[in-house]
């Protein structure tokens, strides 16, 4: 039988979902939104049920009916829009609906199905069909994942919505075809044909790589199967293989002072990333670069692992789906790290276009405001539902991110260093261990994700690359795997992300020495998947686990008890081959050596031309610095992010010690610099070790010199940790590690972008070596370009070369943590650190550029590591916690911004020292390296100053805190003042 269930909120109750959508329409198109008198949302469920209708009716009442909230009759409206997912997309509500039916009917329902959808009811007599189509296609339905229908009142009345003829087609019908592999006739192909084949099948392989495949199969004396070609394309994709970072690079430069970057670089990764870490052999590094995440020892018993991923391409197409799969994907990296870790925090950094861009964007581009709302809610859903707190992040606006947003999703996890004498960081697999696919099923969603993200974005995108996440299936899988780990039921595991089984089994086969599997045994979401689809589908929520045969029964029994599905696909071997069967027929048989080592290295050229230093750079003045500050505080990069932060659960698991926002009881907040989390949640435990997480990025400095940009990112990330009280010294006892994430415009045919990459790598290396902080994990995304058209003309938008640095440090005792807010009237405020500031690419410069006021020639910041290290060692010592009541770093927006933020929480005023030269823009708004704002109790100020002098630290007295919430600065007989409330309003009024 078929059924349509309508969940209709009572007319007299306010409908938050409808009101929220209406608010979004108002923001997007204020004129059109005036035609809408009201908007309500009805949830819909279409069911195909294998039992009697009486049984269904009773169950449906238990599942969906709520007499306090709901009514039965359909409300009046002028228009109705119905929407649901395309068949085959992940439909979480539908899946839970089916599970609820099984609970009510007390049996497995193998032939039943539930599909969820929504109806949007618009009241507005002036609304016409075109309005409805416009609203629907812009804000309700994304044609890549949804299908929709728009009904006028009269059309809806005629719509036989409860009839089987309307409901039946919602469900996927099994296809009768027998899936078969195909032969790809590559042997006789000429170069043009090879390139054509690569393009047509979205392989994103270049001619040299296609030739290498051809040569391999010439030696094998046969043509490859489609499965083999697809496996090679996935494994060799830029996304999986990082060919640009492994390339042979020729570097040259035209600069006033020659850098020490060599002219021939054999693999940037080996020389500047892994090479740098090799020079910093810390005893606490348990695993770097070889696993899904870097692993660091935090105590004798516990280790913490961390990984940051990007999910840019999927988020450009479907922001919600892209971001949720990004965050649950990186959680699987943590789960699949070593012998399995439990995620304890998430981080998110978004780079998007200016939010005011709504109309006239190039074709296929989603407006930045919708991108941001989508990716924010994706990270919210992924993190919150999984019970993982989102503790740190950043939001960065620049027009270069209109084509492709950057969506960085990070996660950290905790694991015991040993379980039953097995070391957590080691991945071992024995010959004969079973290949088990655990968690979700395979569908047609997410085919070609890895290769697609290795291409530039164009207007025509196959919808198969889009996937949606299912946090609940993943949560069950995570709980099950951690339980199985503790029982010692499996040997090791890895996640199924990019490339699906081809990558996960392919990588594990490399450890074992071979693998043989039959993909027809894999559980699937639908019938009729072809062998190559089974192998490369990136359907979410799946892990591949190596299980010793003796544990098979126990592993399967526990999985069943936890409601987790397992497909036993085959076994690991030591044949040196990756063999895949579909039932009886062999569909792939590749040498592992060729698969992993056969890709020919890229040859790339890089040429750097130094930007001439601005001629006649003078010292710009700001006669009314406090008024300028108000404008700076409203800028999107500076403005309060409270609205966004509070929609993330940042406290679940109970570890939070320093939160993203330092908030008073009156709900006023100062942004904190980094997150501090308790490693142990056990009460009455002696373990008060803190995990500290922060990040830094400053892509706009790429325009000056990527070498500086990279060092600024490292410095900001590390300063953020120091603010909250992380330990720091140059000795081995300090646990401080860095994670690098590169997001680049395609540098392959562009010597300048490649030079930017080279310089960034060497800048990163210099900063790491100076701080003695090793890189432990990283990722690069190299094709962040959009190619399309705008008003009929071709356009290309490339992102700014962007390096995100995430820093993870440690505090021996988190009860000594500091927050960024000023706390007490009378305390003295200082600026610590050498003056290494500049105005180039600062928020101040942005403000003047946007106001079209004359942009003065301004200088760029530069680091001074020896001086910085002196200060950082003191800030990272226990002694500093005796003197500092607060610490905040001086970053975007400069000194006055940092001071304003610190005043907000406790609504304190500041009497500035009259010696301060706030009329110099560089003093008030300069940005750059090494500086901090701290407050010290008045009675301790003299001793603190003495210590700083002894240590030769640079410090400047800024002033004293006052109970009256006002800023006062008298300079050359002129007094300036502003109420802190005025600054707070500027900063918080339009919280993002």
């Amino acid at each position, binding site marked *: 039988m078929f059924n349509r269930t309508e969940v209709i909120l009572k007319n007299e109750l306010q409908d938050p979902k409808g009101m929220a959508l209406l608010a979004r329409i108002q923001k997007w198109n204020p004129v059109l939104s005036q035609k809408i008198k009201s908007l309500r949302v009805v949830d819909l469920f279409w069911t195909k049920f294998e039992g009697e209708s009486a049984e269904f009716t009773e169950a449906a009442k238990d599942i969906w009916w709520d007499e306090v909230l709901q009514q039965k009759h359909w409300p009046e409206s002028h228009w109705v829009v119905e929407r649901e997912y395309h068949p085959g997309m992940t439909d979480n509500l539908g899946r839970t609906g089916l599970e609820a039916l099984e609970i009510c009917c007390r049996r497995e329902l193998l032939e039943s199905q539930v599909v969820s959808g929504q109806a949007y009811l618009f009241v507005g007599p002036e609304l016409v069909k075109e309005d409805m189509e416009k609203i629907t296609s812009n804000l309700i339905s994304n044609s890549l994942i949804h299908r929709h229908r728009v009904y006028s009142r009269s059309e809806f009345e005629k719509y036989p919505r409860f009839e089987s003829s309307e409901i039946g087609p919602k469900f996927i019908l099994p296809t009768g075809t027998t899936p078969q592999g195909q032969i790809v006739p590559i042997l006789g192909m000429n170069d043009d044909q090879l390139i054509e084949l690569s393009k047509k099948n979205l392989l994103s392989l270049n001619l040299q790589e296609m030739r290498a495949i051809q040569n391999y199969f010439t030696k094998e004396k046969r043509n490859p199967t489609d499965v083999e070609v697809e496996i090679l394309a996935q494994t060799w994709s830029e996304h999986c293989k990082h060919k640009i970072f492994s390339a042979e690079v020729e570097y040259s430069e035209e600069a006033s002072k020659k850098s020490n970057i060599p002219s021939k670089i054999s693999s940037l990764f080996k020389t500047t990333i892994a090479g740098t870490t090799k020079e910093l052999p810390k005893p606490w590094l348990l695993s770097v670069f070889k696993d899904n995440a870097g692993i660091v020892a935090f105590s004798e018993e516990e280790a913490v692992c961390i990984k940051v991923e990007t999910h840019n391409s999927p988020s450009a197409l479907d922001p919600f789906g892209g971001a949720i799969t990004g965050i649950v994907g990186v959680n699987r990296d943590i789960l699949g790290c070593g012998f399995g870790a439990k995620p304890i925090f998430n981080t998110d950094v978004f780079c998007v276009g200016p939010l005011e861009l709504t109309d006239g964007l190039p074709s296929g581009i989603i407006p930045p405001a919708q991108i941001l709302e989508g990716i924010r809610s994706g990270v919210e859903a992924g993190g919150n539902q999984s019970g993982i707190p989102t503790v740190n992040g950043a939001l960065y606006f620049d027009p270069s991110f209109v084509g492709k947003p950057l969506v960085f999703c990070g996660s950290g996890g905790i694991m015991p260093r040993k379980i039953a004498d097995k070391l957590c960081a080691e991945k071992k697999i024995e010959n004969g261990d079973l290949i088990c696919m655990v968690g979700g099923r395979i569908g047609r969603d997410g085919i070609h994700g890895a290769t697609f993200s290795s291409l530039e974005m164009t207007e025509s995108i196959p919808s198969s690359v889009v996937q949606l996440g299912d946090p609940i299936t993943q949560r*069950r899988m995570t709980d099950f795997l951690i339980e199985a780990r503790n029982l010692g039921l499996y040997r090791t595991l890895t996640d199924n992300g990019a490339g699906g089984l081809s990558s996960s089994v392919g990588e594990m086969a490399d450890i074992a020495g071979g693998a043989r599997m039959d993909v027809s045994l894999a559980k699937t979401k639908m019938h009729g998947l072809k062998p190559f689809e089974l192998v490369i589908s990136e359907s979410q929520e799946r892990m591949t686990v190596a299980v010793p045969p003796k544990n098979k029964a126990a592993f399967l029994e526990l999985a069943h008890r936890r409601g987790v599905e397992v497909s036993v696909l085959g076994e690991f071997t030591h044949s040196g081959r990756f063999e895949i069967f579909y039932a009886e027929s062999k569909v792939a048989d590749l040498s592992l050596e060729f698969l992993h080592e056969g890709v020919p290295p890229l040859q790339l050229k890089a040429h750097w031309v130094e930007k001439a230093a601005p001629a006649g750079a003078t010292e710009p003045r700001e006669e009314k610095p406090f008024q300028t500050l108000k404008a700076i505080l409203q800028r999107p990069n500076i403005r309060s992010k409270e609205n966004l932060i509070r929609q993330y659960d940042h406290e679940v698991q109970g570890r939070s010690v320093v939160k993203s926002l330092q908030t008073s009881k009156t709900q006023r907040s100062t942004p904190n610099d980094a997150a501090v989390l308790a490693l142990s949640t056990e*009460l009455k435990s002696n373990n008060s070790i803190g995990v500290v997480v922060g990040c830094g990025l400053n892509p706009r400095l790429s325009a000056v010199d990527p070498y500086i940009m990279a060092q600024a990112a490292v410095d900001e990330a590390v300063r953020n940790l120091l603010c909250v009280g992380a330990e720091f010294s140059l000795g081995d006892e300090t646990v401080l590690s860095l994670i690098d994430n590169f997001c680049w415009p395609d540098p392959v045919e562009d010597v300048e972008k490649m030079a930017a990459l080279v310089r960034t790598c060497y800048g990163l290396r210099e900063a790491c070596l100076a701080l003695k902080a090793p890189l432990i994990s990283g990722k690069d995304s190299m094709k962040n370009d959009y190619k399309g058209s705008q008003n009929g003309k071709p356009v290309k938008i490339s992102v700014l070369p962007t390096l995100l640095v995430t820093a993870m440090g440690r505090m021996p005792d988190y009860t000594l943590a500091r927050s960024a807010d000023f706390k007490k009237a009378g305390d003295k405020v200082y600026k610590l650190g050498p003056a290494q500031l500049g105005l180039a690419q600062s928020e101040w410069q942005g403000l003047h550029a946007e106001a079209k006021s004359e942009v003065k020639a301004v200088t760029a910041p530069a680091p001074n590591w020896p001086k910085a290290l002196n200060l950082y060692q003191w800030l990272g010592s226990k002694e500093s916690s005796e003197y500092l009541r607060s610490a905040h770093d001086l970053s975007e927006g400069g000194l006055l911004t940092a001071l304003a933020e610190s005043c907000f929480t406790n609504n304190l005023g500041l009497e500035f020292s009259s010696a301060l030269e706030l009329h110099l823009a560089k003093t008030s708004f300069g940005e750059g390296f090494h500086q901090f704002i701290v407050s010290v109790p008045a009675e301790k100020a003299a001793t603190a100053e003495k210590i700083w002098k002894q240590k030769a630290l640079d410090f400047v007295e800024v002033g004293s805190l006052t109970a009256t919430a006002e800023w006062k600065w008298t300079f050359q007989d002129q007094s300036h003042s502003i109420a802190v409330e005025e600054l707070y309003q500027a900063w918080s009024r339009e919280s993002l």
Partner: protein
Amino acid sequence: MIKALVLAGDGINCEQEMSHAARAAGFKVDIVHINDLIQKKFSQDHLKKEYSALFMPGGFSFGDHLGSGRVLALKLTKGLNWNLEDYSANGGIVLGVCNGFQALIAMGAFGKKVSITHNIQNKFINRWVELDVELKVAGKKDASANVFLKDLEKMYLPIRHGEGRLLFDSSVDVANCPDFKVSLYYSEDVNGSTQQIAGLTNPSGRVFGLMPHPEAAVRKTQNPQWTLCPEKSHEEEIGMMFFKNAYKEASCL
């Protein structure tokens, strides 16, 4: 030995924090997966015999997909058929936090005239909020009105939810309903909940559900203002009182 059962599985997220708090208060804690309870046919009698307290932690059971707590309630009701009214009348105590509270509502622990739905802002919200305790019966102070809230008047706790807006059937007199008592109010309107109600107790005062998270306010360093008084950083935070009161109550019997 006084034992407490902490429920886990299917997207319940806060079982660890809940267990740590209960353990620190003195309980011996078993964290048990719902599927294991159902497989063992863990009946009302087993529950009564083995456990003095049942803790239902927060989380996103079944993703809140068909209404928060709803499918979890169905699974518990159909799978175990526990009668919490009877359990509490026989000495048991029950605490449902956030998603656990939502499930208690869907199970009918507070009658059939109450439901809980999306915050009026249609947003998930994580912040701390001041709460007022209501421990009055017929206008008089009565500590037995809620066994978890003894000696508590005002408190400051975190909320972390997208569906905390309590709604009552229009026929209900919220202040005088035989099916439940109001135990806790938000001091400001945070989510559109009727009369700013944050928590309900069943008539016996022994089954308590609330949206704020006491188990996430047990160490001083969890309080967002703790850095104002770093010298108190080793102290307990007020949420611990819930579990101590519960333990005291359970050990009296």
